[in-house]
């Protein structure tokens, strides 16, 4: 006779803080981490610089295009007057040798361009990557074969060389838009591959079978059951895509095929600084530092988001 015993043996209710509270607390601990806090602060600064670049231009009285010969030492081959590349009250980050354009305002407008390109490319690759990744992962079969072959093909391509070739062959036209398209074409497989893998494992989970057994059709299953479990990964992939794009755009501009002058871009500024690297090192150090710190901050953010996302849903 099987005795039914209520309560004596069963483990107590697992200690369960309110669901919302847990996520809120996790967010607070996430932000308290020094590296994350610094990165977020820096990125906010860069975003403000980018957004208010025109305002800053009015305040400082400098614009990214006009030459200021007065700040240059004509006798010494046009290197900026004063040390540290001509840093002064008027020119907070100094001026360019020979041309004398103000570096601070060019950094601000440069931030504007590269953030614009990086974020729009990220939006495209995330949308493309998530949808194609989910379709391939969830429906499998021939659809998966086709999408996977395309992804393999694109990933087997020496992207940088091909981008350079394409961009160099189209001299005119809206450069930023062209860059966004070219960057997105080669980057979406990276997101799609991860999303496809996760969708496949989620699709085999029993809670999807339970939904099917309860009469849910495919669309409901994809959006109501599978997608919520992918949100962590999507955020991480999107965050990590941005620094990738910023670095690649800067690389292309450095090689002269990205953002073409006169629109400033950090990569382009570094390229201009190459001939002066020994005589005026600040000229390449300043855009270089900004580029590095921006990519570094996004990468730290993405890395910590990844740990937080896997932690939250583990």
């Amino acid at each position, binding site marked *: 006779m099987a005795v039914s015993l209520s309560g004596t043996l069963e483990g107590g209710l697992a200690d369960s803080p309110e669901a919302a509270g847990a996520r809120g607390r996790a967010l607070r601990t996430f932000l308290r981490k020094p*590296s994350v806090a610094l990165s977020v602060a820096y990125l906010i600064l860069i975003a403000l610089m980018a957004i208010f670049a025109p305002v800053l231009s009015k305040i400082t009285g400098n614009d990214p295009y006009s030459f200021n010969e007065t700040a240059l030492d004509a006798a010494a081959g046009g290197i900026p007057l004063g040390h540290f590349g001509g840093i002064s009250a008027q020119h907070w980050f100094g001026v360019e040798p020979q041309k004398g354009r103000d570096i601070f305002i060019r950094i601000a407008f440069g931030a504007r361009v590269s953030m614009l390109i990086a974020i729009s490319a990220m939006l495209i690759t995330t949308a493309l990557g998530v949808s194609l990744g989910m379709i391939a992962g969830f429906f499998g079969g021939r659809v998966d074969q086709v999408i996977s*072959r395309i992804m*393999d*093909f694109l*990933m*087997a*391509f*020496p*992207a*940088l*060389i*091909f981008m*350079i*070739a*394409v961009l*160099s*062959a*189209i001299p005119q036209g809206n450069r930023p838009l062209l860059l966004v398209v070219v960057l997105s074409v080669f980057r979406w497989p990276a997101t799609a591959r991860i999303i496809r893998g996760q969708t496949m494992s989620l699709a085999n989970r029993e809670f999807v079978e339970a939904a099917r057994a309860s009469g849910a059709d495919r669309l409901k299953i994809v959006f109501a059951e599978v997608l919520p479990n992918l949100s962590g990964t999507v955020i991480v992939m999107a965050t990590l895509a941005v*620094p990738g794009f910023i*670095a690649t755009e*800067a*690389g292309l501009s*450095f*090689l*002269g*095929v990205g953002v073409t002058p006169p629109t400033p871009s950090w*990569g382009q500024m*570094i390229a201009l*600084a*190459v001939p002066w*690297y*020994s005589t005026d*090192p600040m000229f*390449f*150090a300043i855009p*270089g530092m900004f*580029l*590095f710190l921006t*990519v*570094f901050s996004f*990468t*730290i953010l993405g*890395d910590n988001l990844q740990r937080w996302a896997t932690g939250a849903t583990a």
Partner: protein
Amino acid sequence: MTLLPYLSKRFLASVITLLAVIFLTFAVFFWLTPDPAANICGQTCTPDQIHAIREQLGLNQPFLKQFWAFLAGIFAGRAYGAGATAVQCSAPCIGFSFQSGTNVLTTIISRLPVTISLAAGAAVLWLLVGISGGMISAVKKGTWWDRGAMMVSLGGISLPNYFVALVLQYLLVVKLKLLPFPTLVPFSENPSGWFKAYLMPWIVLALMYAATYARLIRANMLDTMGENFMRTARAKGLAPAPILFRHALRPSLTPVVSLFGVEFATLLGGALITETVFGLSGVGKLAYDAIQSNDQPVIMGVTLVAAFAVIIANLLVDLAYSVLDPRVRVASR
């Protein structure tokens, strides 16, 4: 042998990918280059000179015909122009440079040694630094070393290589005068000079990959250390060394091989920038110069050779993967 059907399918996929690459590259250049003929004969050009060039290079043919001729050129060689002025170009022929008129393929092959020694040296560097750094971080998980190494690796990933190149040159060459400015000198003539010339380019190219590999090895090692068979190894009374280097490292290395296949595609891009900054006349610099002077055949040639190398690398990686992992190599009972 279960391997044969798998590999033959994989080889076929590679051939298809290569053909697709050739087609796409040719198509892009066909539609994008303004006017190759005008480009060849330079500014002082009369219309009929341009016409003659267009005739000789078959540029007025429809797209598919030109592509077919180009494809035939790669696999069987082709002749440009007709009769006495015909120029023979043996297979695999990618055409002649607009600028120098030399055979594109021979130029690329002549530049290969520089790129190979750059890439090979960098590979040795990043594998050593990456794998050992990753392992130490995994073993010393949570210590200041681990946190520091991981932060440095994040930095390594974020540092643009041309910026690192400039910083190194400024510090090591200009300021501290430890190294000469990299000037190419053949290994046979002066090995130490060769080594000094390549040291900075190796560091610049290897930096990002060393960081990526360190993070990957660390993650793999930590996963593997959590496996049950590690507990079995400890319960058998093995010393820490065999536990680490045999039972933990072996499973962690296999994913590294597959990452190499994916990373190889970006390696050539990295080499291009590194060679350009340091002025090393490798295939990368060749591509960069061709881009500056809009020399389409050379750009196309480098792209095809690079794509070919990437496809071969991925094929070799798949082969290595199936040999390395017994569960793939040996079918179950």
